[in-house]
């Protein structure tokens, strides 16, 4: 045995952080990703916010644009977690990233830690950007009590975990890196219309809401509205209240579904050979 064999292998965490650094660098250097994944939610927020800038029915001190600004944080997380992870993994599979890593002492966990670092950094930046737009353009008020920030904290964490796991699972649906953005964006856009992110919940047909209540997006939007809007407008939600307990339950359930799907579908390369 040579001296090489004596030296300890770098830990999965260390390789994972190294992956994370490379992921973040690559993400922000790629103009398509920055424009499409990162800027789009804020652009849509600004557009919808200015189009629907009237007072909310039955609540004179809240404007419709503020309802959008709060709920659309869910869009931001869907972009930086679900879409960017799904598109990213499809790309990694196609351009040889996964194959190269598989030929080194890198583990699947280290690769996923890299994705988590990427999602954490881009999501924090995304949410900060969207909140800045909401506060400056539409007079959204940041909460002053700790209770709401605690809600924000667990909601953000659960939403990011759910979206990342589902993004990893969905990446296998995309046949190629080129088709991935289309495959990933369809459910994201559709669910946002039916879950009360792009359209106020009161305007949606009951049947549509009944269906979208099975998916996480509706609960994410509702949760973020509860953080940034006065409790008085909770009466405009489907159940007439913020339903924090149920939001947590649905998101945790989707975490488990996502985890199961990931374990069942993740592959280093397309191992199914001809």
């Amino acid at each position, binding site marked *: 045995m040579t001296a*090489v064999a004596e030296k300890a292998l770098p830990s999965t965490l260390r390789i994972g952080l190294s992956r994370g650094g490379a992921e973040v660098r690559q993400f922000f250097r790629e103009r398509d990703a920055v424009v499409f994944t990162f800027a789009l939610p804020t652009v849509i927020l600004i557009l919808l916010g200015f189009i629907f800038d009237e007072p909310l029915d039955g609540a004179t001190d809240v404007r419709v644009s503020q309802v959008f600004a709060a709920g659309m944080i869910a869009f931001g997380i869907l972009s930086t977690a679900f879409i960017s992870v799904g598109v990213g993994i499809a790309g990694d599979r196609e351009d040889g990233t996964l194959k190269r890593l598989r030929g080194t002492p890198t583990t699947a966990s280290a690769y996923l830690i890299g994705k988590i670092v990427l999602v954490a950094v881009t999501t924090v930046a995304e949410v900060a950007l969207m909140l800045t737009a909401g506060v400056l353009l539409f007079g959204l008020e940041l909460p002053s009590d700790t209770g709401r920030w605690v809600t924000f904290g667990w909601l953000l964490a659960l939403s990011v975990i759910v979206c990342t796991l589902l993004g990893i699972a969905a990446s296998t649906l995309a046949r190629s890196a080129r088709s991935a953005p289309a495959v990933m964006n369809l459910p994201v856009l559709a669910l946002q219309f039916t879950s009360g992110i792009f359209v106020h919940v009161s305007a949606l047909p009951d049947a549509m809401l009944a269906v979208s209540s099975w998916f996480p997006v509706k609960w994410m939007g509702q949760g973020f509205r509860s953080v940034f809007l006065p409790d008085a407008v909770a009466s405009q939600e489907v159940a007439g209240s913020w339903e924090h307990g149920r939001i947590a339950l649905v998101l945790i359930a989707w975490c488990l579904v996502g985890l199961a799907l990931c374990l069942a579908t993740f592959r280093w390369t397309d191992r199914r050979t001809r």
Partner: protein
Amino acid sequence: MAVIEVQGLLKRYGRHTAVDGIALAIAPGEVFGLLGPNGAGKTTTVEILEGYRRRDGGDVRVLGEDPDSAGRRWRSRLGIVPQGAQDGAELTVREMVRHVASFYPAPRDPEEVIARCGLEEKAGARLRTLSGGQRRRVDVACGIVGGPELLFLDEPTTGFDPEARRAFWALIRDLAEDGTTIVLTSHYLDEVEALATRLAVLSGGRIVAEGTPGTIGGRTAESIISWHDGNGAQRVVTDEPLPLLAALTGRATPVTDLRVQPRSLEDVYLELIGEAK
């Protein structure tokens, strides 16, 4: 102890047998060339040795372990230069090589590896801006930065200009002198001839010939004699060149452009492939 030992290797895709009973033994420090036409089973064989694919039968030992069950420690002793990688497009050469180095317990100095691969001037350039040949050199740099005992090179010089190829060959010889065992697959026969200490020719999933570049397929036994005379260009393949040469020197008519050559590796190779079919 052999670095690679293969007995009766078998791989099927559905009803098609891609690798049909290959046996190989590669010793430490060898540069082993694997030749064969597309579909001969080269890539499948190499990917089984690298641990990318599972075999359907046979015994395989690479660095003393079974690639199907070998772990991270084993991977850290291996270097793989894949074909057609496009990853890390937005990273610079230096970032990429440093990044890959971070996966290994005892990596080489990334700056030294960059220099060795002739990429110093491009160290700050993003991978997507590189030419095909430069990009391949980055792949080689990533393959050797971990300080591997065994290096797999799959079609390494595709897209190189002649000068870059020569520089690359020098690099491979350099690595071999350091004691790295190298397994090389290539379409370029001159490349295998220049680099390999031993080679095997694959066809239809079997090894049809094995030997050194000089002796494979009975290559040394025959010579090609060619010349020009009053009747135009002449060419004779024979395993006894001396009588013919004597006859030529005794001729009254002038003989020009006389050459005596061994059969080229390409001739031997094409014959072997042809026979196998």
